[in-house]
Each structure stands twice: as structure tokens, then as C-alpha cells.
């Protein structure tokens, strides 16, 4: 393919305008159209960036000749949008959590695969240099067979009474700490170990929100397959004002040692030294400055560029996709298990 890829943005909110910048900076891709209901946003983009602007995806898909779309809308809108995108036979990058239920997710995973279309979801931690390094360590058996893990995520996103307004305030729109935050912590688990078989002891709590959870905690179990016997915990809190930026913390324990990793650093404890990785017995500290990769263009973080450039490479060169619709659907199944487990606990309490 020699002509630049023509990409459209559906939903020019915070993620949409970031992805626009990154994808447009690619040597072999250009944003040629944007759909957003905000007149302010489309007027500005039409006037200054001189791209085709539309009030919704229908106009965009009709008005522009595209190779792919970046879908950055609240997830409740995504089934209708992706039906049209699939019909138009376009490659699709969709922001997480992708869908609100696994049945929809499954339908699109199968549909896009069958149509031979690249499908990717924006679980950006899979492109973070620290998490990819930690996964390499685990896959290479650095700490032996993983036995326990903790996946945690904290932020000060909801730290005051937010009322009932906005798409964040209901599950129907994709609001709540499970869809918006725990999805990242669940995806890290899936990225490292695949999806768990079941969850238990789930507790969803409100701090400020009226209709959705602000805190999520649960246990996850692997009963069968190569990971049989592995178990771990999930703790996500988006009402923790002590965090200025959203932070994922991931810990894995194995017989040979322990890994504690977040977006910026990693601590590795080893029972025995590992010469191949130049790691000593006991504690080792690895900083992001030890492992960072370079990207051709930087906006919000290396991983944001890396994931979109990978999407473009998948379309142009058939590069394997690191986070497919199917991967995101597996996460949705876990989210459904969490909702069901908490509901069962509440029902049990009431009985």
C-alpha cells in the first residue's frame, strides 16, 4: 500500500482529539473526517484542520472514502456504530471498554475477523514499556509458575459529589468504576494470564456516585488449563484523592520470586540471581528509563503512539494485533461476572 491510509474519527472527545493528533502525524496515515455532535468541535476542525466534519457516524461513513475508523464514543453508542462500520468494511480501532456486554463484543469480534478487518481495542497498558517488560519476565519463567497476583488501579477521578448528570453516572451509558477503570486492571490480568474462569467475593461500593460503583474489589480464579491453580485479587478505587494520575499496580508471586510493577517502574525479588537479565538475588529496581522504547511522535505517552502506530501497521503490513475485539470481549465477560457476583451477594444479604 503506497497511498496514505484514510482514517476517520468518531467521537472527538478527549481520546478522540488525542488519537487524531497521533494518527495524523504518521507518515502513511491521515485523518480525513471527523464525526462529533458538538458544533463547536466540528466547526473548529473544519475551519482550521480542514477535514470533513459530520454530526454523526452515518454522515462520516457516507461522506468520506475511508480505510479505517477510530471509535472514541461512550460505549453505549458502539453497537450501532460498529454495525455500520462492519457493513462499510472498514478497519476499526475502538476505545475501551469497547462494548457494555460480551454478547455484543462476541458478535463484532467474529464479524470483523470473518470480514478480514483489523480490529483493536485501546487498552493502552498493553503498550506500556514497564508492563510489556514484566510480561516478558513472567513468560520467560523468571519467577517460576505464577501462583498469586494483585491487580489494582487508583485515581482521584470522582472525588466529590458529581450529581446525576453526564454519561459517567449510569451503567447504561458505560459509566462506573468497572467499565471505566477496573476494565484496565482486568485487561492487565488478561494480558498476563488470559481470562479467569470465575470470580468470587465481589464487593462494589459507592463513595460519591449515586447509581454506579466507585470501588471494586474481588477475587479471581483459574481452575483449568495451563494456569489452573492461579488466583488473584482485584482492587480498584477511583475516589482516592491521593492519586493525581490514574495508576495501575500489578504484583505477581511465583515460587522463584515476585514482581511489583506499575506504569513507571518495577521491583523484582528473586530467590536466585538471573544472569540472562542481569538481575541479582533479592531485590532489583528497574526504572522506566532503563526500558523505554522510542516512538516517532510523542503526545501523551509512548504507549499511546505505539498502540495507534501498531493499528496502522496491522492494516498496512498485517502486523498481529495485540488487543483484539476478542481480547476485549474476554474482559467484558469478567465484568459481567463481577456484576453478577456482587448482585448475588446483595440478594443473599437481603434474604
Amino acid at each position, binding site marked *: 500500500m503506497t497511498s496514505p491510509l484514510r482514517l476517520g474519527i468518531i467521537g472527538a472527545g478527549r481520546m478522540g482529539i488525542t488519537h487524531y493528533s497521533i494518527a*495524523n502525524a504518521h507518515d502513511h496515515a491521515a485523518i480525513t473526517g471527523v464525526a462529533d455532535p458538538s458544533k463547536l468541535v466540528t466547526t473548529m476542525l473544519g475551519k482550521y484542520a480542514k477535514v470533513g466534519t459530520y454530526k454523526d457516524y452515518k454522515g462520516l461513513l457516507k461522506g468520506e472514502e475511508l480505510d479505517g475508523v477510530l471509535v472514541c464514543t461512550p460505549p453505549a453508542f458502539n453497537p450501532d456504530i460498529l454495525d455500520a462500520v462492519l457493513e462499510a468494511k472498514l478497519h476499526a480501532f475502538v476505545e475501551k471498554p469497547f462494548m457494555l456486554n460480551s454478547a455484543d463484543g462476541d458478535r463484532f469480534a467474529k464479524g470483523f475477523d470473518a470480514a478480514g478487518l483489523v480490529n483493536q481495542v485501546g487498552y493502552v497498558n498493553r503498550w506500556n514499556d514497564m508492563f510489556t517488560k514484566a510480561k516478558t519476565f513472567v513468560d520467560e519463567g523468571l519467577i517460576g509458575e505464577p501462583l498469586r497476583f494483585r491487580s489494582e488501579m487508583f485515581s482521584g477521578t470522582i472525588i466529590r459529589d458529581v450529581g446525576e448528570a453526564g454519561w459517567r453516572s449510569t451503567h447504561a451509558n458505560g459509566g462506573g468504576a468497572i467499565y471505566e477503570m477496573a476494565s484496565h486492571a482486568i485487561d492487565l490480568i488478561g494480558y498476563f494470564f488470559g481470562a479467569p474462569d470465575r470470580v468470587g467475593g465481589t464487593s462494589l461500593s459507592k463513595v460519591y456516585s449515586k447509581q454506579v460503583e466507585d470501588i471494586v474489589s474481588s477475587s479471581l480464579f483459574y481452575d483449568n488449563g495451563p494456569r489452573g491453580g492461579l488466583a488473584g485479587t482485584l482492587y480498584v478505587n477511583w475516589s482516592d484523592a491521593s492519586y493525581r494520575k490514574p495508576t495501575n499496580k500489578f504484583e505477581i508471586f511465583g515460587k522463584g520470586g515476585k514482581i511489583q510493577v506499575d506504569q513507571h517502574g518495577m521491583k523484582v525479588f528473586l530467590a536466585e540471581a538471573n544472569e540472562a537479565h542481569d538481575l541479582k538475588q533479592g531485590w532489583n529496581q528497574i526504572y522506566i528509563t532503563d526500558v523505554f522504547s522510542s516512538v516517532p511522535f510523542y503526545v501523551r505517552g509512548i504507549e499511546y503512539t505505539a498502540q495507534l502506530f501498531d493499528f496502522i501497521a496491522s492494516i498496512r503490513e498485517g502486523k498481529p494485533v495485540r488487543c483484539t475485539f476478542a481480547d476485549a470481549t474476554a474482559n467484558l465477560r469478567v465484568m459481567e461476572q463481577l456484576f453478577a457476583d456482587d448482585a448475588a451477594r446483595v440478594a443473599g444479604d437481603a434474604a
Partner: protein
Amino acid sequence: MSKGPIDRIVFGDNQFFGINHMSQDKAQERAERFAKLDNIMAVYDHAIEAGVEGIMLNSNDRAKGICDRFRADKAKYGHLKWYPSIPYPHKYAAMVNDKGMVGAAQEMLFAKGAKSALGKMVSGGMAVATLDAVKLMKMLVDQEMEIYHDLDLKVVFLQNIIVDLMLGYDVAEPFVAYCQHIRKKYGAYPGLITQNLPFLRRKLIEWGIEDVVICASINKIGYLMSPGVAEYEAVLAENDGSKYPVMAMSTLASGAVPPVEAYDYINKLNVQSVVFGASSPGNIQQTVSLIEGAPA
């Protein structure tokens, strides 16, 4: 520019407000120490004693209090040159979190009330289609710049999150408008902070924008330098420092490069200025002495 070259050494604010990813405990300790304005001013006094004459300060929620202290003592601080950076990205990110994009935009525009210049501009039946984005941007800049009134401004920097985001859109107008506004209204150099120095400089040349200070991470390991060290070195070697003065930041790469090694590298490059942050008198003194061309 009538105001002469930029300072070789500029003292930053990351040591007060930056996020320390390396250690939660250190971050907490620092937050507690610099919650007190007196402790911040004591560090500035050490820097000034070490010969620093340029101050870079982001328009964060502590900046006004700090600027008030500097304004209050003209005899002691009147000689300092100021290098503000705007906006405070966290403030807008939090607003978007709370209210969404449209709500955040409204809050920004009406922050000074519906009767303010901004308020009048966006209310009163003005059609969105005729909304003048350039005028709007100037007003937002002016709103941020109130913090720095009556200080001697040398450069007004736009934060990298905005610069690099706009850079991807490949549109000249906002860059042209920002630079003109800073020159005209503040009599200062426009400055652009970036993590993409070679790309930004290429675009500025293409767009015919000159006399702009470019502030970028520059360190020997290539941390936060896109696309990479080799490209930075090549561009710096051919750069005309009178048209595009370069200010190096993140010279220690978050502590990955020891100071002696770091400034040995920087001193060999065609870099006009260095912004650094440190909080102990020893580290401040050492850094100043390691940067070549620094005031004795």
C-alpha cells in the same frame, strides 16, 4: 526581540510540584515540605544565591502565591527574568473529568463571570460558526497570564501537552497566533515546550515562524526525545540558536544520568539554555557549576 538572549540557566519548578514516580515515600515527603510557601521560597533563595537569574514557573494553583512573594520584594527579586509556562494541564484535565469536554469549555470561558470579556464573547447570541478561535485562545492565554503581572517576562512557554497535540494536527494558525500574541502583548519571546523537537522545528521553518524558544527534553539516553537521540543531535548541530534558541529540560532523565555525565553531554551540544530543578543547596550549587557558560 529587543530583550537580548535568554538566560543560560533557568530554575524550574519540578522539584516542588512534579510527580515523583520513583518513590511514593519521597513524593509524599516532598508534598509535605513544599506545602509551606516559606520552604519553597527558601529553595528559590538558594538558587538565586548560586547565581540563577531566570525562573520558569508553571501556572499551577500555587503559582500566584509564589509570584506574590517575588513581587513583594523588588529589591531582592526585581532583577529576575521570568519564564512562565502555561497552562496548568492538570486543572483542565480535572475539569474535563468532572464536567466533560463541553462543560469544561464553558467553565473555562465563564470562569470570570458572564460579564467578563470572555463571558461576553461566548454568550449574547454569538453563533458558534463565527466563533473566533484565535481571539478565544488569546483570552485564555491572558487569563493564565494574570498570575505573572508586573514580573519581567523573558519567555512565555506553551506546555508540551498542548504544543505536541496541536503539532499532530499540522495546522500553522494556532502557532502563528500564539507567537504573535506573546510578542505583542507581553513583549516576550514565545516559547514552545515539546517532546518532538526535530518535528516541531521542521514545522516552524515550514510555517515561517522564527524567534521562538524551543524547550525540549535533552539527555544522552534519549528519554522523552522523539524520534531519538541521533535525530536531536543532528538537528541541534545545524540549528541557528539566534532564530530558535533551545532550552534543554530533563537533562538528568529522571535521575537516570548522573549530573557530571549529564552536563558533560549538554555542554558539548549547541544548546542555548538549560532549565533544571533541585531542592538542596548542594545540588543547586553543583548543577550551576556544571553548566558551562553559567554566571560565576
